[in-house]
């Protein structure tokens, strides 16, 4: 048992609160930290955003809960302000991705740029060499490989490794995921045992800074607030109206118009605003022409994708093709595939993924995460699928 100080990233939820209780019970010196990331009041009431603050991120209630847990456990607790970095590294990329016709994952960006970067720095500065979080994942050191490994947790239904593929060796070496071996019911039971007031608090699912999960309203409100400042986005987007465009079929026929590429994601069927005899799906969103390409379900399948940039975890480099299972969205069943360097001319951190079977709705902006059993080999951001590859 270590006596070194450890910082726990506390959100006020059951998972991170239980982590703090577990480490405290082990006799570790624990410091609770909550990151203030987004001011929920900032966009409240703007452009159709709810007046009342309903989002979960950094709400005063959650900080109150975390503070209460820290008090119950008798550990020091602080809120640290990372609003500037969060906006720069998570919120703006989130908005820009949608405006470019992609479907972003803000949680991974937050993990890479905030939780396991900024928070880790603060932790070290205040005397904690390690941080612990309430993620469901495992981290172990492999002597033979001489590398830190990220592994899937015992509770596969809670697996969060998909959002953690960007962690570096340095970050992993300083991170603890104490819930990696537990199931969610066990965690709640432990929270009750420690008399934590939040033991029955419901899980949060939505994007923390988007109240009520309505990301379209969030984008519109954010754009209205930022105005001209977003001009560097391709096509000089200054309002949601300028990203309107045509709805076309896969064979190039214009069948209607749409009010903005941010309304669509690959594989989407509802809300296309066009009526035809057979069901239509979004096949592709073209950033340059702002066209939304629609087609039949079978046109959504592809065998290959390119991912960039890629972060490798269980291996230092990828020289040869490697057999793995690949997840292309959080709720995707990992599918057998071969990963290999994209090409000799491509950037070294670009990987080509070729699935054994075509996969439905490979979506740019999401992550492709590579697994070898429970071990996360690495992962990268999906650039796009390679056309005509279903043949």
């Amino acid at each position, binding site marked *: 048992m270590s006596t070194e100080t450890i910082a726990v990233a506390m959100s006020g939820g059951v998972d991170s609160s239980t982590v703090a209780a577990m480490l405290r019970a082990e006799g570790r010196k624990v410091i609770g930290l909550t990151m203030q990331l987004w001011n929920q009041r900032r966009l409240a009431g703007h452009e159709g955003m709810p007046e009342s603050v309903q989002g979960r991120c950094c709400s005063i209630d959650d900080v109150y809960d975390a503070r209460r847990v820290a008090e119950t456990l008798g550990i*020091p607790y602080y809120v640290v*302000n990372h609003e500037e970095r969060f906006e720069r590294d998570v919120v703006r990329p989130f908005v820009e991705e949608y405006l470019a016709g992609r479907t972003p994952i803000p949680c991974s960006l937050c993990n890479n740029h905030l939780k396991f970067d900024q928070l880790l720095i*603060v932790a070290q500065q205040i005397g904690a060499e390690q941080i612990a979080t309430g993620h469901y994942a495992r981290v172990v*050191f492999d002597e033979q490989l001489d590398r830190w490994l990220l592994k899937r947790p015992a509770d596969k239904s809670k697996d969060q490794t998909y959002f953690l593929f960007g962690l570096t060796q340095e970050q992993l070496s300083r991170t603890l995921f104490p819930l990696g071996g537990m199931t969610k019911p066990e965690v709640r039971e432990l929270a009750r045992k420690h008399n934590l007031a939040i033991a029955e608090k419901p899980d949060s699912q939505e994007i923390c800074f988007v109240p009520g999960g309505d990301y379209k309203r969030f984008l519109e409100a954010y754009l209205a607030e930022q105005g001209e400042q977003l001009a560097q986005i391709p096509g000089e987007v200054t309002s949601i109206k300028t990203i309107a465009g045509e709805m076309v079929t896969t064979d190039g026929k214009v069948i209607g118009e749409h009010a903005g590429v941010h309304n669509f994601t690959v594989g989407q069927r509802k809300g296309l605003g066009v009526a035809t005899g057979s069901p239509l799906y979004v096949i592709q969103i073209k950033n340059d022409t702002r066209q939304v390409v629609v087609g039949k379900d079978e046109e959504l399948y592809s065998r290959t994708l390119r991912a960039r940039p890629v972060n490798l975890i269980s291996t230092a480099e990828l020289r040869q093709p490697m057999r793995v299972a690949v997840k292309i969205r959080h709720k995707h069943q990992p599918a057998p595939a071969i990963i290999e360097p994209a090409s000799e001319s491509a950037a070294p951190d670009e990987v080509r993924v070729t699935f054994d079977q075509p996969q439905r709705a490979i979506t740019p902006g999401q992550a492709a995460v590579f697994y070898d059993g429970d071990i996360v080999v690495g992962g990268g951001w999906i650039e796009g699928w390679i056309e005509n590859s279903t043949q």
Partner: protein
Amino acid sequence: MMRRVYLDNNATTPVLPEVMDSMRPYFGEHFGNASSIHHHGQETRAAVERAREFVAALLGCRASEVVFTSGGTEADNLAIFGLARPGDHVITAAIEHHAVLNACKHLAEYRETTGCEVTYLPVDGRGLVDPADVKRALRSNTKLITIMFANNETGVVEPVAEIGKIAAEADVYFHTDAVQAAGKAPIDVNQIGCDLLTISGHKFHGPQGVGALYVRKGTQLEPMLYGGSHERSRRAGTENVPGIVGLGKAAELASAGLERGDDGHHQKMAAARDRLERELLKIEATGLNGEGAPRLPNTTNIYFDGIEGEALLIALDLKGLAVSTGAACSSGAIEPSHVLTAIGLRPDRAKASIRFSLGKQNTPEDIDFALGLIPDTVARLRALSPVWPSSTPKAAVSKKLAARSQ
């Protein structure tokens, strides 16, 4: 038990034992409602009026000009909302406490209901308001000037007497928030020439939850609270007798301390502050905020380049030293200081600034303790800072940690 040293006396101060003793009977045997006609009421009424006299003595005014409130924020709000009427213009400064700033912001934001316009005056690089700016900002409809006596973050003392003259010449009301000055600098409402002045008990070793507003005789002030005719109908609500008694005692002790001069606490406090400041400024890449301006004897605000003030505050707190930075928002996270921003400090320096504020209870040993901690902690933070030039690159991946992660 870890030794703890408290150098955040501009946030709040410990209640002095004499103050505590003075209050105690009013939680027990002297429990009467000061408005009651019977013996019990008379007892507490007398205590309230005695306290009013002590506060009046501290401020150089008449007892009848003192209105007790729940604290500094209420007194500031009463001054502003009690005077500003539709069509009025109000002059304030960018460095005011939020109790004034946000009250003025409300006046300006809800113009359709309040009808008020507000001018926010800038400050110079030292944090001083230029009285000439006050004069220039005057309009025919200017009703009120509200500019603080001394700033809570930097301790900078504003030229309130000069502003008072300008206000008197223009026949405009002048309110000053003297929350930080009370007990640390002599206050005389006639010398300042103010019509309203705010103090708060807990900033000078009195209890929290009680303050006072000086209201010059003849000032047409509308109440904010309606109810009984307490406080000459200026502030309805049963008096907080123990609090008021404590405030009175704190005022009495503060007046005595200010009169004592050389052997008083203030000289000692100033000497201790000066030593702390001198030693901290010896650390490489540091600087004083508010340099060149007259300052309170207990406050120093210093930036340490290359660090986050937030991290330094936490690191010091974990070692037993309480200091502060910026202003806490509702969650407790630290927001960049509007005061340091108004002074024109670079954003990174505003975030790298720490306020040290001393109180009567601090000893030379407390300063030794602080000086024993701060230089090393600053050095460690800089070594881990992504922006400090000589910081060590991220530590090599530690295999040592392997065993612990299981």
